């Protein structure tokens, strides 16, 4: 059974190609737009708040509702770690990422009785075109694991039958950059 991947971009394409599950699942890649960093909060316009935070967040809510209506048993929401770390020049993007990540917990609490698990995967900011050097995490140590880090395996597991006791969690998959 294929997995519905909601979202656009390189990461969504990677997950669309690589995630497979026999459990009905949906993966939501939150539309955090790192190409639109704000030089200072003083320069942030109301239109930018709407475009960077409000509209994508409303789409996250809609995507979760769509996943529920599709009778998905596994829902995974993918965000950058920037929501947990905060990001200079990325306040509205961080707000979106954290807002979506905590909505996962609310959904897990409400939908657990229906056998639905809802979890979040937090990945390196670069997947969302966010520059980690100015967004945080400001790590004293470099990333623990070298090489490319892919969330495909983790998302596959969260979409599968063996993760059925795991819900409301955030698993950071960034090679140990943010701890």
């Amino acid at each position: 059974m294929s997995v519905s991947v909601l979202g656009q971009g390189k990461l969504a394409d990677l997950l669309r190609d690589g995630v497979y599950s026999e459990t009905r699942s949906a993966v939501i890649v939150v539309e955090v737009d790192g190409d639109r960093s704000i030089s200072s909060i003083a320069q942030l316009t109301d239109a930018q708040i709407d475009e960077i935070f409000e509209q994508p967040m409303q789409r996250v809510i809609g995507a979760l509702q769509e996943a529920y209506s599709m009778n998905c048993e596994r829902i995974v929401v993918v965000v950058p770690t920037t929501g947990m770390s905060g990001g200079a020049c990325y306040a509205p993007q961080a707000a979106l990422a954290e807002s979506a990540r905590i909505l996962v917990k609310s959904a897990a609490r409400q939908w657990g009785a229906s056998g639905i698990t809802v979890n979040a995967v937090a990945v390196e900011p670069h997947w969302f075109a966010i520059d980690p050097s100015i967004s945080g995490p400001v790590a004293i140590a470099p990333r623990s694991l070298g090489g490319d880090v892919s969330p495909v395996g983790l998302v596959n597991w969260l979409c599968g039958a063996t993760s059925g006791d795991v819900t409301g969690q955030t698993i950071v998959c960034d090679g140990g950059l943010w701890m």
Partner: protein
Amino acid sequence: MNSRRLENRVAIVTGAGQGVGEGIARRLAQEGATVVIAARRAETGEPVVESIRSRGGRAVCIVTDVSVSESVDACVASSVQQFGRLDIMVHNAFMGGIPHKLEKAQIEKHWTLMSRTGVWASLFCARAAMPHLVASSARPKGEGGGRLILITSPSGVEGSANIPLYSPAKAAQRAIAKSLAREWGEFGITVNCIGPVAGSPALLTAFDRNPALQQAIEARTPLGRVGDITDDIGSVALFLASDDSSFVTGQTIICDGGSFLGL
């Protein structure tokens, strides 16, 4: 306790016409701050002003709708015009929070008001206050120090089974605080959050209607009670507003008697 730790400082507290905002305003005023009661309605804001003045404090009410950026800008501009400075911005006002099922939630009915008064308004307050907080931090040590304090909730960390869309609105405020803590560190401005559980009018009314709710909350709270808006929550805000917290930034202090221990 009253040690005048905020003498000569000017603070704006949104949603200070009642509840947690009122408690914070009272506590800051007790310590010598001039407090702007930014309330949506003068009917709630003015009595708080009178009460603070009757105890020797300094306060004014500026009617403010935090969901409208121009209203926030006008509040900040008027405050600075009247008092010459702004040192402390506390965004507490928040509206919405109707219990709902997430799968049936409607954006207009269950999300928009919380997003506007929580997320958007946090950014409005930050944007309007920033130049004045920078100026405050540029003053000699002990004479200033820019502070932005956002009032969030334990639900913004742990999610909510009853009001699922309340949690993301509150979570966004923590992310904004962390982001601005990074962004404004170079100016010496600190940005922090408080996650209170306190005896606001809304909660006390709920207790009156449902005494079992009060018993349930107190039973799960290690300290066995809900917080007092002035002595408990206001004192945490005082710490974050004062020089005592000058090396604390980007943090959330959950002030709920120990009910939530998940950080």
